[in-house]
């Protein structure tokens, strides 16, 4: 569309007359009606046949979508992906989710309203509206009301539109030409656009510099941070020993780490027996523990050949040896707990059930290497 008519504008100075004119012209279907007024005119929207905006429904829809997505996300984060009990509350605590749901609803709704209004319904961006280049624009922004018949298709009859506006009482009529792309695409137009972008960057940079470097720094609110409190691993004048962290009471036992009632693995062998039943799940757990913690030195099959390089000079026990096969379960458990020779204690790394599961798995490895005839049948 390099040439031709964009619209025919008729100017009025009376709000009632423009509404009447729109009502007269609209049924003749000459072109799409549009109105430009310096102030809102009651009833003009209906007279030019403006349908109620679809924006409201879109905003409602996206608001509901936002609420549902927020709820889904919070449920997945708090109850599925990273279940962490906070303040003794259930994992799915809808009460705590409502504020976030509300915020996300508002976020989705307002962004939809703003962006859909600008880009979908008002068809931005464009360089300039043709009416802005008309002669009448100064009057329209001052005290005149303009009714415009926009060209729709090739069959648009500008003369008929002009006549219709004059007949319905327009004070003056102007034909607005269609926008010319030549001007927007010329070298001058391109340079002007580049200059505008550069100027925007310079202004933004200068503004940032002024705020960041030149303005005095206002300290943030840190009342909560500065309140009197105890920090673990920090000194504190509150307690006599000068430490913020309290030593554990003598005899304190961490959950799942009962203090051993034995002094040596041999003693453990006489006192303890494996409390876990041998099930598929326990065997699987034992395999995991063994491969993660034991196999690196004792080998994947427990033959005492380390996975580490030959440079490792230690001599890990061979679980398949008759000596270790003869030891009771409690003895193996005791070694895991207390350590032996170069082997450190695993009491801090593995809990009680992990250790017993590993003992089960060691027995499975031993049986696998010393299968009896009936195992093969």
């Amino acid at each position: 569309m390099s040439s031709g008519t964009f619209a025919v504008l008729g100017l009025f100075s009376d709000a009632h007359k423009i509404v009447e004119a729109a009502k007269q012209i609209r049924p003749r279907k000459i072109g799409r009606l549009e109105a430009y007024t310096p102030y809102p005119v009651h009833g003009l929207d209906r007279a030019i046949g403006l349908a109620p905006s679809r924006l409201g429904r879109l905003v409602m829809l996206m608001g509901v979508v936002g609420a549902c997505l927020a709820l889904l996300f919070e449920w997945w984060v708090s109850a599925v992906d990273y279940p962490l009990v906070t303040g003794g509350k259930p994992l799915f605590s809808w009460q705590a989710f409502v504020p976030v749901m509300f915020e996300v609803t508002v976020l989705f709704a307002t962004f939809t309203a703003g962006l859909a209004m600008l880009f979908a319904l008002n068809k931005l961006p464009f360089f300039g509206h043709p009416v802005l280049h008309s002669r009448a624009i100064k009057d329209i922004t001052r005290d005149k009301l303009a009714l415009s018949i926009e060209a729709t298709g090739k069959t648009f009859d500008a003369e008929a539109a002009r006549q219709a506006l004059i007949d319905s009482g327009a004070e003056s009529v102007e034909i607005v030409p269609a926008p010319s792309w030549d001007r927007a695409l010329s070298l001058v137009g391109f340079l002007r656009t580049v200059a505008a972008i550069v100027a925007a960057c310079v202004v933004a940079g200068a503004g940032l510099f002024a705020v960041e470097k030149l303005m005095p720094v206002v300290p943030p609110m840190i009342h909560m941070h500065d309140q009197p409190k105890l920090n673990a691993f920090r000194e504190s004048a509150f307690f006599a020993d000068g430490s913020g962290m309290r030593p554990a009471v003598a005899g304190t036992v961490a959950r799942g780490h009962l203090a051993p009632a034995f002094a040596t693995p041999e003693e453990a062998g006489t006192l303890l027996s494996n409390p876990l039943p041998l099930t598929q799940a326990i065997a699987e757990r034992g395999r995991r523990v063994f491969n993660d913690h034991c196999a690196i030195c004792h080998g994947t099959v427990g033959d005492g050949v380390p996975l580490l390089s030959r440079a490792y000079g230690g001599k890990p026990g061979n679980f398949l040896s008759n000596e270790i096969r003869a030891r009771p379960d409690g003895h193996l458990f005791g070694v895991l707990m207390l350590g032996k020779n170069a082997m450190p204690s695993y009491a801090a790394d593995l809990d009680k059930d992990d250790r017993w599961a590993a003992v089960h798995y060691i027995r499975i490895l031993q049986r696998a290497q010393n299968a009896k005839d009936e195992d093969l049948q």
Partner: protein
Amino acid sequence: MSAPRSLLARNFLLALTVIGAAGTAGVYFSVARERFWVNWLVWTLFLLTLGLGNLFLVALERLVGAHWSVPMRRVPERIASLIPLAVVLLLVALFGVPVIFPWTFPAAAHNPILVAKAAWLNLPFFAIRLAVCAAVWMLLYVFYVRGSLRQDESKDPAFTVRARRLAPAFMVVFFFSVTILAFDWISGLEPEWYSDMFGVYLFAGTFISGIAAMIVGVLSLMRRGRLPEVQTKHVYNLGSLALAFTVFFAYIGFAQYMLIWYANLPEEVSWFKHRIEGAWQPVALLLPLLHFFIPFFLLIGSLGKRHPATLRIAASSILLGHFVNLYWLIFPVLGPTPLFGWPELAMACFFFGLGCLQIRRAMGRGADMPVGDPLLSRGLEWQP
């Protein structure tokens, strides 16, 4: 043609009130005294909050200088006539204070929390607070409502100026008095509980139910052709206001609940625990449904605010929700199960009839529009 119908309605209301009065007397002598006074309190507060909410709307119009609501202002002024009735009923309720308020019981002297609160919760100070609040409400009611009626004849524009000047002071006094009403007469029923937000909560309920009552009143007058110059655009604004403050009420109500739920302090949580668990749970669920979800989704579109039937359903839902709210706030002091039997119905007949008769009586006073207000013509010509 309308005269016999109106007479019929009046006789029906009279009969309802008389039967209700007889039933109320029966309740007093046959059922536990606590139940009688708790019913009395719920209904008195229901009528009082509707009256106060509408007086607030009248003053709010003066404060912000609104024109659009001037043609409909007689409706809230007439509903505000519930204030003198409800004030009398509340003064009568003073006799019930030693029956239902635990801080008056002898055991309170051994409760360290109540001993600490005794400076506020004692009968003489309680009565003084009520007297001051009642006097303030009556003065404001007489000033705004009777003044507006007098302006019908005098056409004196000076009253409009005076009413606007008093409005800021009205707001301050009103918030304080409603907060005292909420603390004294509702949360005082379980005096160990406290919530700073409770005053705002009752105020939000008062305001939104006041708007709802005004909508019902305006629509019923319009249906009878008594407000011929009030148009959809005026009513539309009422719908917008109702939507906004439906959300405000839900916000305040949920904020109070969520903060207490989060902090999980025993003295705060116990109040909610016996209101949202067990047999009270259905009532607790009914409250957001009637007070928020139904009116919100009916009013969110522009159609709902224009369409009288939709608007009426939304307003009725809010009014019913306001009653359920007061019931849910006050009745749990009687026990873990919601009581609703013949005593409640009898007393509902009595108070409902009394309130309707009072509003009907006020309807006879003055014109249906504030014809003496110089802003009336601007209100009628008002464009959105």
